[in-house]
């Protein structure tokens, strides 16, 4: 924690100093340097490339390019600084024309998705630690399948089983064990669904013999485990799904940016 805080304050300090320096340079030079817009554009493009290289770095773990954690810090604080550079390049005005607006929208999508991803990656792992230890995301379907089989075996075990439990399983639990449930409610940290299910199991318990009640207790335990698994599934999926916006639109942005550079030069005063 202490190390994280040190990193946070150091990164924030560097970001603030760099941003103020960039703004001062902008104030003093944006009217004095004739090609200021070109220079600020190239600096911005350089930072965008640097940020995009973070993904390439992850694909080349064998190269001695520094620790991935350092790259992540660089990506985060560099990302915020790139927003400042973007505003400077725009000279703090709204974008004009279809192409500029498209570029700005793509930049906004990438930036906002990145910030959302950062917030999620800061908040969700802490919440995951409070519910059921570590679960490998890719193994969740198999574990869910196992829980379902166990629950079905208990509820629909055979001729000696309780018809009340079997009826309850078919009516309420079969759907619950069949697939991930309550995705959005888990993200909102709501325990309403599982509490209602457990309350129904509690009501049912009063109608059962001791033997059947013991079986029902085991089913209740499996139900709690399944709910915990759904919780992990919801949060871990969210941790992965934001990248479905951030990464593809980053490449789209880079493509449009390259064409933007070509257009700027093709339509510049120096072009024939």
């Amino acid at each position: 924690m202490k190390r994280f805080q040190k990193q946070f304050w150091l990164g924030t300090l560097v970001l603030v100093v760099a941003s103020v320096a960039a703004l001062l340079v902008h104030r003093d030079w944006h009217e004095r340097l004739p090609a200021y817009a070109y220079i600020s554009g190239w600096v911005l493009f350089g930072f965008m490339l640097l940020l995009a290289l973070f993904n390439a770095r992850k694909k080349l773990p064998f190269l001695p390019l520094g620790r991935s954690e350092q790259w992540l810090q660089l990506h985060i604080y560099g990302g915020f600084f790139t927003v400042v550079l973007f505003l400077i390049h725009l000279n703090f005005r709204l974008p004009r024309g279809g192409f500029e607006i498209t570029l700005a929208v793509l930049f906004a999508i990438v930036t906002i998705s990145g910030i959302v991803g950062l917030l999620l990656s800061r908040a969700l792992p802490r919440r995951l630690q409070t519910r059921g230890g570590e679960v490998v995301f890719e193994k969740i379907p198999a574990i869910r399948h196992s829980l379902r089989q166990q629950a079905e075996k208990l509820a629909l075990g055979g001729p000696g089983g309780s018809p009340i439990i079997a009826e309850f399983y078919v009516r309420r639990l079969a759907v619950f064990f069949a697939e991930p449930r309550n995705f959005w409610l888990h993200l909102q940290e709501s325990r309403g669904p599982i509490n209602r299910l457990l309350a129904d199991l509690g009501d049912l318990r009063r109608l059962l013999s001791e033997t059947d009640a013991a079986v029902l207790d085991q089913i209740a335990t499996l139900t709690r485990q399944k709910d915990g698994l759904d919780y992990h599934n919801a949060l871990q999926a969210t941790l992965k799904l934001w990248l479905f916006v951030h990464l593809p639109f980053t490449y789209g942005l880079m493509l449009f940016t390259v064409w933007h550079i070509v257009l700027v030069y093709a339509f510049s005063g120096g072009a024939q």
Partner: protein
Amino acid sequence: MSEQLPAPEFDHDNYARPNQAWTCGHAAEGRCCPLGPDRLGRCQATFECQPVLDLKPGETKGRWRCTRSGGVCELGPRPDGTCCRPIPPCSPRASLRWQRGRFTLAVMAASLAILLIVLGSPPLRDRLFNPGTVSQPHSGAAFAALAATNHLNMSCGACHLAGASGPRRIVHTAFAADPSPVELVKLFSAAPAEVTSLDGHCQTCHTSHSFHQVTVVTIACTYCHLEHQGAKMKAVGDAGCVFCHGNAGTMAAAATASQHMLPEAFQLDMVRHGLEFPAPHPAQGFTEVIHGFADDHPQFRFITDHWRDPDTLKFNHALHLTGSTIPDLPNGHKLDCTFCHQPDASGAFIAPVKFEQNCRVCHSLQFDPATPGLTLPHGRAEQVTAFLHSLPQQYQDYALRQGTNASELATFASGKLAQLRKVYGLGETLSQQVFLSTAKTGPDTQVGTVNGATRPVFPGCAYCHEVKHDAPGDYQVTTPVIYERWLNHAAFDHAKHTALACEKCHDAVHSTKTADVLLPARETCVECHSLRGGVVNTCATCHEYHKPLVARTN
């Protein structure tokens, strides 16, 4: 050396391969196929074993042997050598990572497709790449016609070669530009306002592009004129002017250069608006360093150079506006500025004062107190002399106009002349009274009247005019020269200032001499034309930059 721990709970029969693009369709059931899907996501499951053919020496057919890892199955291989226990195929599932990669490719493909579609359609291309609305003069029908005569395209291609090109040509143009995308160092050494190729396109239509002073260095059109800013082309900002006028070095160089040039070289060929005061060209030219009108714009030259109005007309503004002897106008109103100073047809300028319209209402030029209807003509001195020499005829004409019988005209005229001779004399004596008498020397100090009173209205011409008298009968009245434009380098529109009272800018009520130049000082203008005043105060508000059309044709 620490002991290496075994991997926990590693199940060799349930190898899920989560890092691979495809996972076995049975992974969700906890029983992955050991082989797993191939790279393209196809299930590779066949049979539980691959039987081996045991062929003993001398045998031709041999016997298939089961090689199942979990133990030999009961039925064994089929006669054709295939396993009798086929593995049910699965539907491999793509990993999230693979799906994300495919989605990324799809987004990139879509982006590329959008770009190619746009590039392939000129109307779409123009619309998407246009960073802002082109001004009406550069986009209307008139421009289309003009562009056609210059063999240019109507669209972006009129100004940008790349605008009329496809993607390949656009890329080629970009890399042929100066500087090109690979010449980053050049960006730091670019000179401000440097003339570029684009300026050449401007001058395709804007021929004879000339600047306002001969000492001015040529700067790029686009430095001052910003296109793509809306249908109405954005007004030229101060930055373009301050680029030279705010630069002490440039101004000093211009001042030095101008010392070796004749004043005629700086003669402005402005479109004339009325009679302009012939202000001399300053020895140093207009080379004071200026950053803004409200900041360090020099005081107007009529103040710093103590200009005096050389007009010979004797006019006292203070007397006319505040004098107690000034009678009311026929409509009962007091005399004010607007009675004499009315805007011209454009409203921008004030029409010249006319004697007949503005002066005669008080200064009727009546000379005979008994005959108020007969007045002297106003104009040339010769006309007045001729009038006086023909007084008998003038009286007869007057009597005729009044309805007197023809037989009595001569009697009427002789009677009037006798009365006039008795009071003022006739001939040269009367001429001297008419031409030379002033308020102090005239027979009566009543100068004018508007109520038809019969008092004589001497003094004469010299009361207002410079009259030269060298010999009897020779009177020369100097024609007044009333300058209408004093600050010739600036434009002013009275119509835009009608909300202000005249005296706010023109201190006429304190002016007793014709020589006073009744214009406002810079400070008066700055009260409104400044950030504090809230009214626009750019250089272009008052000044033109290019020589107007008159000059271009020279």
